[in-house]
């Protein structure tokens, strides 16, 4: 089963509203990352939050991490039509050799209506 599960699977909002997406995971992580994917394109890294951090901001993005509940949330404030995309959380699991393996959820499809 997926390590990370996003919720909701789809979200439709009006421009200017805030969008909140949640991610739950199962095992201990080194960090958690959020990626964005526009239709027909590759994934783009948005933000990384380490396991010892609780909240992080980047522009209109706010990410929280609760390791006790094994959950994270991504908040996009003052959404724009250009924010329409799929958003994925990815949990970083330690691998052999000191590197990390990212395990992706199935994503939340966000539609921002003008």
């Amino acid at each position, binding site marked *: 089963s997926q390590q990370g599960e996003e919720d909701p699977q789809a979200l439709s909002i009006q421009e200017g509203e805030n969008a909140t997406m949640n991610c739950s995971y199962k095992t201990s992580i080194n*960090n958690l990352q959020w990626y964005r994917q526009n239709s027909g394109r590759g*994934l783009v890294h948005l933000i*990384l939050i380490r396991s010892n951090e609780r909240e992080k901001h980047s522009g209109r993005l706010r990410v929280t991490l609760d390791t006790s509940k094994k959950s994270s949330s991504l908040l996009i404030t003052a959404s724009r039509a250009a924010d329409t995309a799929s958003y994925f959380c990815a949990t970083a699991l330690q*691998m052999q050799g000191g*590197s990390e393996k990212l395990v*992706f959820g199935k994503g939340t499809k966000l539609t921002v209506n003008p």
Partner: protein
Amino acid sequence: DARVTQTPRDKVTEMGQEVTMRCQPILGHNTVFWYRQTMMQGLELLAYFRNRAPLDDSGMPKDRFSAEMPDATLATLKIQPSEPRDSAVYFCASGFSGAGTDTQYFGPGTRLTVL
């Protein structure tokens, strides 16, 4: 503006044919990942290289898939023979594994259709 490049962008082939997908990682990156994305399964890790050495290919069907890095500027993913269930978008990503916190940079993907 450094980017991961993938070729071809689209590939349509018939069942049984060999398919080779290529990836040029970002110069200086030492990790390369191959992913497959489908509606049903989402994004699955197929193979992972660090400093050109394969570290994990547990997600890859061994009987028909193979992944290699002939040199630091080229990673390949081959399917032989291809099957209709291999139809998917295949992404390559690269990163730099140094302090242990890796951000991955994705290529645009190869959309494979096996008829």
